[in-house]
């Protein structure tokens, strides 16, 4: 008697055969084993803490139009890896968010090197990020590719390539073979689309020290929004979590950045939607580092920084 027999004992009568077992086991595989874990709904948990007569929060599907939504995390993460340096710090363990942010902002990447990082998103998507650093250690080429797959077949691709200021991007829906081509995208576009990132005025704000510089500015402007949480493990690695409260609090998402305790690069980020009655809501979203490698520029595969849009029924989308 196997676990399948025990779980589905009501389906195995006296006439059950090996074929019955194969069918039931396969159905179990299709319907349960392979389903990814569902996200935890902070809104539901928050609603439980409300008085019984409190109005229910509204449920909205997404903060962004879909193609742009898919592009934004990749773009931000590309910029975020600006803090992904090679610095090893021998100083005592930081005791405040300020110290960690300073360390991250001070990280210098080796000149004439390239970074490849792979992140996994909350919906199973994978983002592969390439960044090439010039003689001064600043990004001169970048490429981010987000891929959503099903059964080994690509269903959607989001790709951006560019330099310091602008990136060209496309969104390709493989099933319908529709290509949404975005001519250019900048951090200003991102800021228009997502109020929680309004502090990004242009891409220069984010290159180099990336998120750390952003956090430095926030720290000076509104220090009460930034908090160091207890050191913890993230995917087996120790990280310093820095929480940035949304503004206004309770109306905008809270973002938590996880900085590696040794290299001070970004190991992940989580966007927690606001809680409470009457607040527009989405599920918690996250991006986690899967792998990260620094390599010589000469080892970067040819064509890495070319857009290479697939052929399709092109639909031009220009972000205003």
């Amino acid at each position, binding site marked *: 008697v196997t676990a399948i027999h025990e779980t589905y004992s009501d389906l195995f009568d006296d006439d059950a055969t090996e074929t019955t077992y194969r069918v039931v086991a396969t*159905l179990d595989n*299709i319907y349960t084993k392979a389903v990814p874990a569902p996200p935890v709904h902070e809104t539901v948990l928050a609603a439980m803490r409300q008085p019984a007569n409190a109005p229910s929060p509204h449920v909205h599907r997404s903060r962004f139009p879909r193609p742009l939504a898919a592009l934004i995390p990749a773009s931000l993460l590309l910029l975020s890896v600006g803090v992904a340096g090679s610095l090893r710090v021998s100083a005592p363990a930081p005791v405040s968010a300020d110290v960690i942010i300073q360390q991250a902002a001070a990280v210098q990447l080796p000149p004439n090197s390239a970074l490849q990082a792979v992140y996994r998103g909350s919906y199973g998507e994978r983002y592969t990020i390439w960044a090439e650093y010039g003689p001064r250690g600043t990004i001169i080429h970048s490429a981010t590719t987000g891929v959503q797959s099903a059964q080994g077949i690509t269903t959607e691709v989001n790709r951006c390539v560019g330099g310091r200021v602008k990136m060209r991007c496309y969104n390709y829906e493989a099933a319908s073979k529709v290509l949404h081509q975005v001519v250019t995208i900048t951090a200003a576009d991102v800021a228009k689309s997502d109020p929680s990132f309004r502090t990004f005025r242009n891409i220069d704000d984010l290159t180099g020290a990336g998120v750390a510089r952003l956090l430095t500015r926030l720290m000076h402007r509104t220090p009460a929004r930034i908090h160091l949480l207890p050191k913890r493990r993230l995917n087996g690695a120790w990280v310093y979590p820095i929480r940035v409260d949304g503004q206004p609090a309770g109306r905008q998402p809270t973002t938590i950045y996880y900085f590696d305790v040794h290299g001070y690069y970004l190991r992940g980020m989580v966007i927690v939607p606001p809680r409470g009655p009457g607040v527009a809501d989405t*599920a918690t979203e996250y991006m986690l580092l899967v792998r990260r490698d620094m390599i010589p520029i000469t080892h970067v595969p040819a064509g890495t920084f070319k857009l290479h849009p697939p052929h399709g029924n092109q639909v031009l989308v220009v972000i205003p």
Partner: protein
Amino acid sequence: MRNATVTREHEGPDDVEVVRRAGRDRAAFEPLYWRYHGRVYRYLRTRTPQDSDAADLTQQVFLRALDQLRQYDETRGTVAAWLFGIARHSATDFRRKHRRIVSAEDDLLASLGVIAADSPEGEAIRRDEIQCLYHALAALPSEKREILVLRFAGGLTIAEIGVVIGKSAEATRKQLRRTIQFLEEQYRDSHP
């Protein structure tokens, strides 16, 4: 083993007691959320084209349940059946609203394709077995497929499925058994 109960994956106070407590204090509802949100999500994932749709609907189901705690009547079925009844209504609403992007029959198979991807157990079961069942499932009427989904993805007992779809337990049991037999025949035909 014919009438053995379905394995349950929870501990703690029973569901009815949790709903009673939650009627006085909504925070008491939390065990039910943790107990069922994975099963509700799995069910809804087979009725929607994307993970994010299923996640949104799952959230909606539990918020509705919180609002409708006083409407639960234990004489009409278990808490699980009540929750999946709400989930079924939510899925139906979703499909009605998204008719243009969710085609009538193809979305389920598309969903199955998504679900089967990256399965850690995927290598254990031969790919052609899964493909064979895909084709057989596609040939099933939607009401039969839904019974399978409620049994496998939702983990409901036959009696609970009967409550959700509005049929007697005996009729549900017969239909489920016939469906499994049909799938067995398809399997034998493709694996002589």
